[in-house]
């Protein structure tokens, strides 16, 4: 039994064979973000009024720096995948769709590089 459209059955290309990877990456980053996100938001909520020195000391602790870096990367990866799905579903004009996806990729990659650089700078500056 095939469940494809009549045209799809005649052409017989099968699936695009690339959907599962996206789906799985989205779920995997979601599971990673459960503990990381809860840690981040409660750490942020309970420390909103810290001084600059106290913030630097908090982030410079090795496990805090690692957890924050993992959170940032998982967050931006999950965000990129999610935005991609929404754009693909709701933007129907093809040039606009492709341009939006490219822009989204650049913005997410820049944010990841900048955020990671900031975390490492804070962590390594404190170590010396």
């Amino acid at each position, binding site marked *: 039994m095939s469940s494809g459209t009549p045209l799809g059955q005649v052409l017989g290309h099968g699936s695009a064979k690339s959907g599962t990877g996206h789906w799985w990456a989205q779920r995997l980053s979601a599971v990673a973000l*459960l503990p990381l996100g809860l840690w981040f938001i409660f750490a942020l*909520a*309970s420390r909103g*009024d810290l001084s600059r020195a106290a913030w630097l000391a908090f982030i410079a602790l090795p496990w805090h720096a690692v957890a924050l870096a993992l959170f940032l990367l998982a967050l*931006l990866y999950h965000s990129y995948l*999610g935005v991609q799905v929404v754009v693909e579903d709701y933007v129907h004009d093809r040039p606009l769709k492709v341009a939006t996806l490219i822009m989204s990729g650049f913005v997410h990659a820049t944010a990841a590089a900048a955020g990671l650089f900031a975390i490492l700078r*804070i962590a390594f500056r404190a170590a010396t």
Partner: protein
Amino acid sequence: MNERPLSPFLVYRFMYTMVLSFAHRMTGVFMTVGALLLVYGLLALAGDAATFEQARVFFRHWAVQLLMLGLTVSFFFHLSNGVRHLFWDIGWGFEKHQARRSGWWVVISTLVLTVAALWMAVCGGRGV
């Protein structure tokens, strides 16, 4: 061709579960702004005292505070509803009455987690 399913907006009557479903995407896209705010905060912290002070003034602004409250609610909603999605992914809770009941649990969980974070933010700010 005539027996193919109709689009949801043609056959469904309104249910609150539809709001939850769309809100999952809305909060997800909205939180991309939060990710960029996080990167801005990290960069300001990695800079000197002046950039930190600038960021402190920015994050203290009532409009940004309101934005962050919205981001907090979005975060806990997306997290709670995301767990619901993960359960669906492993095949649990697909029955209509189960999906409706878990929808209410998402709302309750969002409220409880948001109140907990706000409580921590208020008490943490006073050094408790």
